[in-house]
């Protein structure tokens, strides 16, 4: 899926010569200390950043779940999600299903601005489930979730893999699914000193 990928941000090389491949039904886990370029890699694969070197191929349909909510704060959750559903060609039933998968069905009528940290995270996940995407790019998907919600997240992720989806997640919190690839990123300082 990726070929000698490199990324430079703020004049600093975050990674280079990165190779890995995930086939349908496989999940990859990104780990490593803060600032090592995990989020940048996810944004790059989502098409939000240009690689400074190398290339990658990714499925046409992608969903990115990062720390930004991208839901209208003043709208009830269901209506806020419906905007994305309409863009992705989904219907009301799909919105309800996504909210149920994220354990938010009881909050459908509550404006998003009243949500707690964990509920906001689950709203992000619901938006991701709703997108018609083969590849899920998840940045700390379990942040702020309680144990039960992490279990729920695990079931949703497993469901996506069983349907032939691909997942690449960066997480410090152990996720309850089996990862096929573990990409451990290390800071590049020593490497650069050699060159």
């Amino acid at each position, binding site marked *: 899926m990726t070929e000698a990928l490199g990324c430079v941000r703020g004049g600093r090389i975050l990674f280079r010569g990165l190779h890995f491949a995930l086939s349908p039904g496989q999940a990859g886990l990104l780990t490593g200390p803060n600032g090592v370029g995990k989020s940048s890699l996810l944004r790059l694969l989502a*098409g939000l*950043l240009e690689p400074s070197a190398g290339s990658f191929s990714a499925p046409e349909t992608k969903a990115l779940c990062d720390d930004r909510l*991208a839901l209208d704060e*003043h709208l009830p959750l269901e209506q806020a999600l419906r905007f994305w559903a309409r*863009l992705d060609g989904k219907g009301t039933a799909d919105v309800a299903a996504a909210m149920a998968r994220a354990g938010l069905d009881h909050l459908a009528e509550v404006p998003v601005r009243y949500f707690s940290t964990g509920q906001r995270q689950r709203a992000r996940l619901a938006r991701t489930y709703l997108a018609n995407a083969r590849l899920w790019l998840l940045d700390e998907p379990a942040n702020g979730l309680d144990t039960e919600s992490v279990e729920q997240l695990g079931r949703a992720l497993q469901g996506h893999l069983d349907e032939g989806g691909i997942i690449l997640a960066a997480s410090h919190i152990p996720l309850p699914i089996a990862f096929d690839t573990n990409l451990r990123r290390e800071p590049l300082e020593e490497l650069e000193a050699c060159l």
Partner: protein
Amino acid sequence: MIRAIATIIWRDVRQSYASGGTWLPVIFYLSAATLFPFAVGPDRELLLQTGGGILWIAALLATLLPLDRLIQPDLENGVYDQLIVRGFSDELIVAARLVSHWLSFGPPLLFAAFLASGLMGLEGAALGTLLASLAIATPALAGLAVMIAALTAGLKGAGALGGLLLVPLAIPLLIFGAGSLSAQGGSALLFLAAISLLLVAITPFAAGAALSAVRE
């Protein structure tokens, strides 16, 4: 694709009318028009001569009011990121924003100009010219607002900077817009239309480039 763009535009327009943000420029416009006769006195001739120009300046200032709500909130909230992930281009996102902003800015401003012209004693042909020139210019004003909002998104003190940026860019509009109100103003409307088209045409590219630069 067309349906998706309509969905994006509809969301913005609905949000703008629902939040009351649409009426802020209108109220500002009417207050400026109300204050002017108090300042210069009730001399009917003077008001007739200067009223159109004042309404034009008020329209430019009203353009500044919604600047911080045009791009910044959606950029911060990750809405644009999500649209890009879905394959929309920066230019398309900004073009949709231009249309939605004009829909919630142009018609209410024209309505306010119609009300305010009564305070200046404008009527008949003069009123018609004023409304025509504002109708031609509102797409350009909306375009300028979207461009400046995209350029200053994420900066501290974006409001003040936006004001400084608008003034030089809006001068051609003001010259031909207010110029069309004078007796020999026929071709001024055509020039105004040309400038308006130009500004509308470059908005998606200029503001789109600003959006993609912010992402880096």
